[in-house]
């Protein structure tokens, strides 16, 4: 009996020891899970933050030297003001407890723990991306103060609400709308807001010339293509955080698929835009090719996790073609002045990417038309894209309308001719350089 008891005791001891040990281990492993998610999301967030620099460089490069400082200020400040308002309000509307249409809790991310801090960090840089897209379309003629007001509203209200529908557990999420990293949530929202902004502003002086009742479009050249190209490389670099980070988990291995489809989509987009511009204008156009890469990136953003490499290449190619014709159409037919092509790149190609999910989706959960999924997913995607378009067109339209009436949206003719750097900020961006200021 003593023997038995001894046995029993020893066995129990060993087991309890083991489980004790195992408990500790399990805790460590759980901590590692948290750490992997944390590291992945924070680094991805940093990469997405860096896209602000990319946007600033692209927009500066594709506009005139006399407005470069103003673009800096707009890009810096829409992030800064956006971050504060997204902290106070935006997060609450987007990820607070939901009524299907918007969230409403956690203002000032109250009571945040490490996980919530992490998630806010990852989300704020997306909000800022949506905001900053608009700046390009409104470049070279917008009052700085008006832009500041706008940027508070888009990051605080417009973006969070449609974002809630899709990423915050709202009605579109319920329906199965799939937008992995934000073709619609981020890019289309930015693009459609850009469209409204450009519409309310009107074109830059000298952009459209009326000769014998016919309006012709004139090119106003960007002043610094090297800067613009740097911006595109920075954006592409950041996009690995934007897309792959959107797994939202450091142990979700689809991040590899995402990285690959993102790379292929962007490459195909650049090549398609280059070829189309070559065929169409006789020369491989630099700024169109740059826009093509961005178009491919925007297009692949929604479907990146659910398509095959082949699918990604096709999506990119089509995005690259779309962007060239869209830029032409908006410029030559609609006569809307979008200095950097933001509406086409982010709005139109964002729409394309959203629909592409319904065409090229190749997973069990998200199966598109071409992969035997029928029209269901495509229909949901179209509905989602349309709803967001309507929401942004109305809300941003109203916003710009009110700003225009109450405060003025556009600088005076004299200020525009002199350049916003001097007139709005009292500075020159390239002091000492000789620049032909007539341009």
């Amino acid at each position, binding site marked *: 009996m003593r023997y038995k008891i001894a046995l029993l005791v020893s066995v129990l001891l060993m087991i309890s020891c083991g489980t004790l040990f195992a408990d500790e281990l399990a805790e460590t492993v759980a901590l590692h899970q948290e750490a992997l998610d944390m590291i992945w999301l924070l680094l991805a967030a940093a990469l997405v933050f860096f896209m602000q620099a990319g946007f600033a460089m692209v927009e500066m490069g594709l506009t005139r030297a006399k407005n470069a400082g103003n673009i800096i200020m707009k890009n810096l400040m829409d992030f800064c003001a956006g971050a504060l308002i997204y902290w106070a309000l935006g997060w609450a509307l987007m990820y607070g407890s939901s009524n299907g249409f918007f969230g409403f809790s956690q203002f000032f991310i109250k009571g945040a723990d490490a996980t919530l801090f992490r998630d806010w960090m990852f989300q704020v840089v997306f909000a800022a991306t949506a905001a900053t897209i608009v700046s390009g379309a409104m470049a070279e003629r917008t009052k700085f103060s008006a832009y500041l007001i706008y940027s508070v509203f888009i990051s605080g209200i417009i973006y969070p609400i449609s974002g809630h529908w899709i990423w915050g557990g709202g009605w579109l999420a319920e329906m199965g709308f799939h937008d992995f990293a934000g073709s619609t949530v981020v890019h289309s929202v930015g693009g459609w807001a850009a469209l409204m902004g450009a519409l309310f502003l009107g074109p830059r002086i*000298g952009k459209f010339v009326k000769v014998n009742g016919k309006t012709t479009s004139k090119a106003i050249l960007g002043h610094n293509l090297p800067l613009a190209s740097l911006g595109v490389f920075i954006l592409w670099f950041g996009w690995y955080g934007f897309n792959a980070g959107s797994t939202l988990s450091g142990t979700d291995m689809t991040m590899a698929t995402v990285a690959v489809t993102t790379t292929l989509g962007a490459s195909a987009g650049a090549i398609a835009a280059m070829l189309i511009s070559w065929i169409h204008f006789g020369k491989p156009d630099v700024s169109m090719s740059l826009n093509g890469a961005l178009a491919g990136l925007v297009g692949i953003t929604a479907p990146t996790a659910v398509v095959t490499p082949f699918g990604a290449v096709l999506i990119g190619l089509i995005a690259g073609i779309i962007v060239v014709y869209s830029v032409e159409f908006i410029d030559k037919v609609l006569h809307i002045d979008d200095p950097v092509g933001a509406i086409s790149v982010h709005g139109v190609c964002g729409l394309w990417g959203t629909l592409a999910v319904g065409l090229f989706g190749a997973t069990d959960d998200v199966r598109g038309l071409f992969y035997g999924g029928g029209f269901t997913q495509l229909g949901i995607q179209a509905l989602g894209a349309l709803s967001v378009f309507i929401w942004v067109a109305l809300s941003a339209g109203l916003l710009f309308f009110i700003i225009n009436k109450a405060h003025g949206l556009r600088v005076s003719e004299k200020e525009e*001719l002199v350049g916003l750097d*001097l007139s709005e900020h*009292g*500075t020159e961006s390239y002091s000492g350089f*000789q620049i*032909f*200021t*007539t341009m």
Partner: protein
Amino acid sequence: MKLIIAYIQPDKLNSVKQELYKREIYKISITNALGCGQQMGYTETYRGVDIEVNLLKKLRIEIAVNDSFVSSTTEAIINGAGTNSIGDGKIFIVPIEECIRIRNKDTGAKAIG
């Protein structure tokens, strides 16, 4: 033949060109210049410190014309660049003794246009 040299505000180039075209004067050369005249320079501030920008950006236009075109050319410039405000600029007329077209060695009145 005269060489008409004019300093104008940069943002007036387009209207000057249009006025010249109306008078069928198509040939013109332009350089960037910094000028200092009656318009004593504005003061910008940069981080709150004054910069005396008493050298202002101007465009310098050169138009070589036959004597009969002098008055219509100056008229075009004045119409295009004048705003009745300080800084509008100046026109100087200098004699040209000879003019040669490099392409075919034409000289004189034939070469100038």
